């Protein structure tokens, strides 16, 4: 908070870690000779070795390759669900903040009520209703994760509304849609970016949580959550099947949270 240089260094540090994780997952098929679904039943489960850095699972599939494939799904779901929450949250918050008065009160009352509900419970109910598909998973997660974003954006819009440049475009008689999209929303960028970086780890956590319970990503697809679930089942005999995914997942979550915190401190949206 006191020295912005230190914050920016922290931001870069975590951004590099995340870029490496995401890059390795994305480029996995070109970097690593094993395919995630190539079985080697003769080999079976083997401990980490020079040939298989993270070991192999019960079917002899290379765990590093599986981890990279799981990462593509986990990170993909994380980004897609965050996008959903971003669209709903920003729209809701801007409209409420800009409209003000009774509309604002009603819209924020809805947010308050939703806040009081147990979310994971609702995501699970949604999987009951619509089956367990990947698309639904991230729509459902996005649909419950937008509330805080809506609150932040609303507060920001309320203060923007008082600023001279917004009053000016209102007086110029621009249509409301244009004012919102061209003049208000671009000025929300800072806090929105910061809060988005904090939403991604929450969303990834929720995805892994659902997948761990068996209600999220379904086989043959795998995510970090399903890999952890598989690892837990055999952790007594083959602990590396749990430890590999566990370490990568925890490290990614940590970096994402730390990146969000560092950005938060560096940009300090509260004081803008």
């Amino acid at each position, binding site marked *: 908070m006191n020295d912005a240089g230190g914050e920016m260094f922290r931001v870069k540090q975590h951004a590099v870690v995340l870029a490496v994780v995401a890059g390795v997952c994305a480029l996995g098929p070109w970097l690593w000779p094993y395919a995630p679904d190539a079985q080697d039943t003769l080999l079976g489960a083997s401990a980490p070795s020079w040939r298989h850095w993270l070991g192999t699972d019960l079917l002899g599939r290379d765990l590093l390759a599986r981890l990279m494939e799981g990462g593509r799904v986990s990170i993909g779901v994380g980004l897609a669900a965050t996008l959903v929450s971003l669209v709903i949250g920003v729209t809701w918050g801007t409209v409420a903040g800009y409209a003000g008065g009774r509309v604002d009160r009603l819209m924020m009352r809805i947010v308050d009520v939703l806040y*009081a509900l147990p979310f994971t*419970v609702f995501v699970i109910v949604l999987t*009951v209703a619509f089956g367990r598909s990947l698309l639904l998973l991230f729509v459902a997660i996005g649909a419950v994760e937008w509330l805080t974003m809506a609150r932040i954006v609303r507060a920001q819009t309320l203060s923007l509304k008082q600023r001279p440049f917004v009053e000016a475009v209102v007086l110029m008689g621009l249509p409301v849609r244009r004012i919102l999209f061209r003049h208000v929303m671009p000025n929300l960028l800072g806090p929105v970016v910061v809060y988005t970086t904090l939403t991604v780890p929450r969303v990834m956590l929720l995805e892994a949580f659902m997948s761990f319970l068996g209600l999220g990503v379904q086989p043959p697809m795998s995510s970090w959550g399903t890999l952890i679930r598989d690892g837990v089942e055999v952790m007594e005999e083959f602990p590396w099947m749990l430890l590999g995914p566990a370490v990568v997942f925890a490290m990614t979550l940590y970096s994402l949270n730390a990146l969000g915190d560092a950005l938060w401190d560096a940009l300090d949206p509260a004081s803008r």
Partner: protein
Amino acid sequence: MIRYVLKRLAELVPVLWAVITIAFFLARLAPGGPFDAERKAPPEALRQIEAYYRLDQPLWKQYALYLWGVARGDLGPSFRKPGRSVTEWILLRLPVSLELGAYALAVALALGLAGGLAAALRPDTPLDRVLNAGALLGICLPSFLLGPLLVLVCALWLGWFPVAGWSSPAHKVLPSFTLGALYAAYLARLTRGSMLEMLGQDFIRAARARGVSETRVVLVHALPGAMVPVSAFLGPAMAGLFTGSFVVETIFFIPGLGREFVEAAFNRDYTMVIGAVIVYAVLVALLNLAADLVTAWLDPRIRLE
């Protein structure tokens, strides 16, 4: 005060109605009924079953009957576990989840408050740094990782605790710790922050200048004020502890409501799912209300209206 509580309880009614309605129609929207599974039952039996569960009636009538049932505390029969009604199942399972949540809350409060206070009283020392690192670790290790890792190390390798189950006190240690760890970490960070802020206030300096003993300054002058943000956090925290135990109950095979709910979601046991959702919503609302009351009691500046 009483008027405030009554008002909050009255506000609960429309919320609950919305929850029930959403859950009811979401469950009915689902493609495929709970009975068109593996073996095709003879049509006559199917008709009887549908009549028993009132599935043969129009949707609005099912909905009205369900609401009427809920108002009387009857959550209907379970689709998948005949013999007991959903209300009976919930009464059987809920106490276990509440017990687990209470232990986890105790773990979170004990570790979180002690850790946060210790760190705040010795800021920027090795102790502070160790505690901070511990809190960060707690936040980055979700329960579905922490639980299995604890089982692996403390139960399978060291043999200190049983692997799973819920019969003896020894069984309850690992699940309580797994569930409470995240909140202990949050509480520690929150306590440290707000305690440091309090200790920097003028009235604390004045108290020290008057020669008040350090113990008294910390416990009597600073602590109550520092607890305000902590108790505000306790509402959501307790809600999370009492309703967020699906994973912990699944990992440790604990016969609580969380595991029942996940099982019901798997088996598309609609009435059980809706019943559990209602219970969770009520629980969360009541816990938030309780937390607001405690916060107002700690900080007289907060007016309840």
